[in-house]
């Protein structure tokens, strides 16, 4: 009996080692981690606030809603900021590339909001989307790669880069809010205040329609396929400029 018990223990130990003996993998690795979005379809997929949309192919110009995927890691307090379509999708903690929010007196200010690269940019925030136009390269500074979560294109008039971000950093405030990019002594900052506002990606229904820059698709307010190329309506005449993309008609 003792021998059988011993053998059983050995078997148990072997099995437990085989089944559970994962080795720790100590190494330094890049901050961006994979978060493959297997359900993505179409040609372009982006996070749109807290939802996700794809455009092109079966999703067409209006887009379709697809599941949001985040890395299988503890979600950072600042949340994940993700970019890329399908298997190319990667994420990093939002705190890594932008300044923290400082909240006081009911409003939150992000003193170092993110820009598409380290050049000089002019940015505005409308309906929860940030869009920017490049003013100049930062003198003597290599521009570096564009932030992959921005979608960019050359402006129709002028040719400077216009970029749009449908999932800017959310402020740490639970209530509906509206953010705006402002200049404080020449330095841009994002100021978020509690204020009901039409927002990208919010839920919609017949009795809760979307605003003019989005359409209700599968219960979410989605912008049309983003093809950044405008800053002002005059760039799109006779059309209009909506969130950096020219649209037909007024």
């Amino acid at each position, binding site marked *: 009996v003792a021998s059988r018990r011993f053998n059983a223990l050995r078997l*148990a130990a072997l099995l437990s080692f085989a089944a559970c003996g994962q080795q720790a993998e100590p190494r330094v690795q890049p901050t961006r981690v994979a978060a493959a979005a297997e359900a993505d379809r179409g040609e372009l997929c982006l996070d749109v606030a807290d939802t996700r949309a794809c455009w092109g192919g079966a999703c067409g110009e209006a887009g379709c809603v697809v599941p949001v995927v985040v890395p299988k890691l503890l979600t950072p307090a600042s949340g994940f900021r993700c970019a890329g379509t399908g298997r190319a999708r990667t994420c990093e903690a939002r705190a890594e590339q932008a300044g923290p929010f400082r909240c006081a007196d009911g409003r939150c200010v992000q003193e170092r909001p993110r820009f598409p690269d380290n050049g000089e940019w002019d940015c505005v925030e409308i309906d929860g989307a940030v869009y920017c136009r490049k003013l100049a390269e*930062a003198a003597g500074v290599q521009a570096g790669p564009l932030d992959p979560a921005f979608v960019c294109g050359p402006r129709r008039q002028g040719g400077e880069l216009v970029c749009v971000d449908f999932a800017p950093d959310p402020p740490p405030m639970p209530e509906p809010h509206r953010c705006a990019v402002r200049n404080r002594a020449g330095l841009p900052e994002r100021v978020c205040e509690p204020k009901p506002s039409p927002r990208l990606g919010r839920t919609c229904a017949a009795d809760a329609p979307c605003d003019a820059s989005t359409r209700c698709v599968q219960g979410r307010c989605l912008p049309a396929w983003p093809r950044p190329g405008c800053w002002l309506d005059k760039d799109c005449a006779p059309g209009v400029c909506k969130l950096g993309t020219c649209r037909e008609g007024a």
Partner: protein
Amino acid sequence: MRWCLLVVLLACTPARDVEVRIRLAAAVARAEDVRFEPRGHVRALRLDDRGWLQVSTDGAALTAHIPGHCPVHLEQAAELVAQELFSYPETLAQVGYDAAFAVRVEPGCPEAEAADLRWSQVEGLPLAQLEARGRELHARTLPLAAYLSGPWPPGVVAVSPRTQGRYVLEAIARVAGREPARLRVTVTSIARATGLSSLAVSQRVMLGGDGWRVLRAPPGASPELQLRDGVVNFAADVPGRYLLANAAGEQLEAQALTHDHTPMDCGRAECHASISSGAETTPMSHAFELPFAHGVPAESASCMLDCHVVGEPGLSDGGFCDLARSLGEQATGYAQLPHALQRLAGVRCTSCHGPGAIPSQGGRARILRASVCATCHDSPPAYRHVAEWQSSRMARSDRDPASRQSLRCARCHTTGGFLHQQGERVRADWSLEANVEVGISCAACHTPHGPALGHGLVRSVQTPASLAAPGARSAACVSCHAPLPDELTPSASSAVLVQGQLRLPESLGGELLAGARPHAELAGGCVACHGKRAGEALDHSFRVDSAVCTSCHQARQPAELHTRAEAVLRALEPRCPSSHTGEPASPCASRALNVARYAARLVFDDRGAAAHNAPFARQLLELAERSQ
């Protein structure tokens, strides 16, 4: 058997992984250095390149022992911040000359309270009254006279790392059961200063002259104006223009801003597009990335943040260190930095030009002063360039105000004149540059914004036509050390002798003279001998170490050449006025005499003629002697 299955079941029931993210307060080189108690419960461990430790455990209560940090207790999924074992100021900036200061080390947790700290000074002139009392260190900085001596002309006094009164103190902290920790504190008496009136907010500068007072300041400003160690110190506390006046009624307009508030759109097409693109690829622009690519040892990290980024550590100047502190960022590598920090990671426009506005037109030549480069390149023992240059004649080339008055002199006696002549920095009104003493400084031979030759950013300069040798080596030197093509008597000569060939001015027949040229093809050109130091960087005093000569030559060169040349010129004096005394020269009685004087002056004016090219010097003297 049931018992056995129970064991297997218990052992293999996949306990839920617990994910913990730990924000490290200080850099940790390797994840393997983190120790967990009890052992064996960590399933995965990752140290990412932004200073986060990600731990996946089986859910057991664990304690992580991270080098340099207090123990961190992990039990449930969470995002934690690891407290540093000790908190202390890494930089005590601008404490003043001859000023008492104290460094206090605070334990971050009970484990650190019993630490044994041993203090020592590891850099700088020995501090006076250094006294360590446990976790506190008290000392007094040295007086200003130990570093700089006045009087200074009215305006901002330039301060370099060598003169800022910089000290590095180190404490070895021993905590039971841990590797000893090394705590480094850098103390500065004052911030570095370019000498320009374009200042950073919070940067304290010394002012030359007496009785300074603030005439005008921006709204809300309370500028600091104090007499410290016998010198007036000024610091702007808010951005804007400040107008100051001294006892003599001279005014100084200073513009203060923070580095991160300064727009960096200088490279717009209608402004400085070529300068901006030229600067983008220089080693200075990449000063932050390059060392990281080669691995920065911990003891060099503070030095890295002094001169490889924008701004002064310890100040609220919107520089790299200031912004990194407010963003809670660690400098782990360029690519990992937020864009706002990438803009400040390297030597950028405001590092030299200051974050304030462009100075008034009369003061713009100050940017050409060596004191601007000295804020980094006067930091012995690594950087001795500026101190060496200051001992050279080039540093004094425009001390005589007459040398700055006409462009003909200024082209080789002032940096502004040299650059104007080269078409690099053309000024419509030359007189505006004439009141600033600069010398032939760094910016004459080096260009921080290209186009440059090689790693040393040596300026690309055209070879003068008189040398008849396009593309001659050391063009930056020879453009001033060779005669101008139209001169009746040569204003400079040594490059002609080294080159061993010369085209005479058209007025003297335009003949090509050529001879032996034993040194013309030396690798490195002029600096193959001038400033050459075995195994070391170039000596910017440009002195010739005689060992460089004797490595090839057995004996000293004869000194008879100068005597012969002087004899020819004295003999010519009656027929060629001012032959011996120099400019302005009047034409001689004949073209042959003009040629004789020209050839003799080439040898006479070059004190190193014998070393540069004795055979060609003799050839020139023979020509002169034949023609007189």
